[in-house]
């Protein structure tokens, strides 16, 4: 569907892409995640033939995007929802796009309806809220009924209702068998949406993995245990005796790693150590992502020192 191989791109002295390589499979939403400046938008512009890479290839349906005769029928994209002529109506915006692909006006009405914009179709797009512009952008991307879709930060600036709509919509599109690539700088936005993530940092891919695998590697059993002050040392002792690593977070609370929660309960019970509360902590996608990108995040030191001034 979308295959990116060894992309390199420099803007002056700044390396935007440094060997970016991944593929987007059909039938699922692939999250394209990374901090700002990781090269996500540049990669998308290269895929669309807007920027020329210094090295590497980007193929859509097996061909460079620039060689496609009706590109919107192969890949629908939304880079910037604000990229609209303000005086043109939503319908006319879609109409010229449709005409450029040889599509009839009927198709415009179909995508308007699917995006829930039919009531505002004849209003100037310049008066649209950001959420409505995102819907219009999605409608434009769907014009050619493409087997692949690519959206750059579609959740940016959306209200909660819009985010819910967008997530459901993306899941539906993937369920129809399309390849859907969605970039975001916030992993949490892709929770319950993406089945796969490509994590980028400093212009290359850090991780290319299924969501389930990502969570399982990151959530390697962290258990929080609360005991009375009297028994905290005893609890730490018996658990360390079983090979767990234990840290005291504050008075009466231990964080245990290396043992699943059931084993912790069993060990404490068998040693007769009393405890008040035990909870197994499941890692969030956000935490897993932060763990992976800790080294890759650029400007962290700079941001830190700025924060301290």
């Amino acid at each position, binding site marked *: 569907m979308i295959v990116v191989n060894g992309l390199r791109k420099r803007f002056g002295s700044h390396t935007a892409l440094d060997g970016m390589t991944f593929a987007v499979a059909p039938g699922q939403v692939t999250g394209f995640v990374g901090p700002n400046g990781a090269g996500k938008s540049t990669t998308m512009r290269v895929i669309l033939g*807007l920027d*020329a890479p210094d090295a590497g290839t980007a193929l859509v349906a097996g061909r460079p995007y620039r060689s496609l005769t009706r*590109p919107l029928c192969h890949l629908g994209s939304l880079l910037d929802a604000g990229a609209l*002529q303000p005086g043109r109506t939503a319908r006319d915006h879609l109409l010229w796009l449709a005409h450029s692909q*040889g599509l009839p006006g009927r198709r415009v009405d179909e995508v308007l309806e699917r995006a829930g914009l039919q009531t505002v179709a004849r209003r100037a797009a310049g008066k649209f809220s950001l959420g409505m512009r995102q819907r219009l952008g999605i409608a434009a991307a769907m014009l050619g009924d493409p087997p692949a879709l690519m959206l750059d930060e579609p959740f940016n600036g959306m209200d909660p209702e819009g985010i819910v709509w967008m997530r459901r919509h993306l899941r539906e599109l993937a369920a129809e068998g399309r390849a859907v690539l969605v970039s975001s700088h916030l992993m949490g936005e892709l929770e319950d949406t993406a089945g796969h993530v490509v994590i980028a940092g400093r212009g290359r891919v850090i991780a290319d993995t299924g969501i389930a695998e990502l969570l399982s590697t990151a959530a390697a059993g962290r258990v929080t245990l609360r005991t009375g002050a009297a028994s905290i040392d005893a609890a730490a002792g018996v658990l360390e005796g079983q090979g767990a690593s234990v840290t005291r977070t504050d008075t009466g609370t231990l964080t245990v790693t290396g043992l699943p929660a059931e084993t912790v309960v069993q060990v404490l019970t068998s040693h007769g150590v009393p405890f008040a509360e035990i909870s197994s902590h499941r890692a969030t996608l956000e935490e897993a992502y932060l763990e992976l990108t800790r080294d890759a995040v650029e400007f962290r030191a700079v941001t830190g020192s700025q924060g301290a001034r």
Partner: protein
Amino acid sequence: MSGFARVVHAEWTKFRTVRGWTAGMLAAAAVIVVFGLFPGMRGTCDDSCSLPVGPEGGEVTDVFTFVHRPLAGDGSVTVRVASMTGQLPELTGTGQRPGTAPWAKAGLIVKDGTKQGSTYAAVMVTGAHGVRLQHDYVHDRAGKPGAVTASAPRWLRLTRAGDVVTALESTDGTAWTGVGTVRLDGLPATAEVGLFVTSPMYVEGHGTAGAAGAPSLATAGFDHLTTTGSWAPATWTTERVGGPADEDRPLGGPPPTAAGEEPGGDRAPAAGQETGAEQTGDGFTVSGSGDIAPAVAGAAGLGTTISQTLVGTFAGLVFVVVVGAMTMTGEYRRGLIRTSLAAVPHRGTALAAKATVLGAFTFAVGVVAAAVVVTVGPGIIRGNGVYVHPVSPATELRIVAGTGALLAVAALLALAFGVLLRRGTAAVTLAIVATVVPYLLAMTVLPVSAGAWLLRVTPAAAFAVQQATPQYAQVEGLYTPANGFFPLEPWAGFAVLLAWAGAGLAFAAYRFRRRDV
């Protein structure tokens, strides 16, 4: 639908769905029409104001003092021009001063009767352009240079043989040199042949667009007049062709005509009792005022041309280049260019389609506006009492199509600037500086030579397509843009704009194909 047609369709949809762009184009048409249909010109010309038409269809001035006899069949006439003097009007005041107008004419003429506009051939000495052979108003051939003085008289001979008229000149009456031969197809068997003197409207441009003109007078002393062939009757008749309605207006009488106040029907030989002929020993002393030449429009001539109806073109051009540049810079400003190129990744196609839509629409708008004013405008100007030179349908068509093409190609130049600069203000400013400003400067404040230079090299050279009447080297006139005359031929001027736009678009396409967006 082929790929390119599809993209053109899309660009057309894009263009027509932005109200500002279509409104801008309609405003361009409206401003041209308003300028054309509500002209400020006023004059005193009524229905009687018309000019004789020459054998080749063009309007002519045919006013001169004619001392003639009928010549049946073939024959010749020879004369010595012993002296040539004249009087020029003082344009800054009243009265006259001695001097000969550069195109004052004295010599021999063979003519189909004395009706204005009839076919003729004439050999003459001039005030400052030497000996000339002219025929049928628009044709002019040079003989030897030099003016007539007491120490350097000039001999002239005109011979008719069938339809062929041969002119000779000599400094001594024995050694003759040919000036040329012309064929007059419509010349009847018996033609009026004899001496003539005339002297044209004397014009001085002052400042830049301003001008003043008034009639001048020339007086020539002819002697050694001899003839061969069948001449009858024996006596010479003096006639003021184009007169004598002006007899009550002596030289210097009418006030100088200033530009802006159109001369209308006031062009008239000056003359009164000072024009005429007086027999001397073996010749005549003849005084004349007027001209035998194609009629020229403008401050120096009579009335105006249909170009005048199109004076609003420059204002329309402002709208057109603004829209032309904005169709591109508007896309850059909002990042819409990325959507456009995602839909049409082949950039050459994308740019060509945009140029096609912009060019075709602008051309259509320009042609409609120009057709309206060229059709309706002259009647309104005539109604205001200003004479308008009629032009051939071919010229009218060229002016209408040329105006549309001028606007269209200028829009494409602005589009190229839009691609290259990507910023609306910069592209619009550059386009206006390149196309409208040189024209306005040449029309108003610049000296004629500097204005002519601008109208040769800048894209504004294309305004030459609006020139309605040709410029004649043998007619003194104010051939300035303000009078409807441009330094380049119509299509040469248009070619200058075309070259600019072509180069601009080629460079724009080159950059557009290589640039990241």
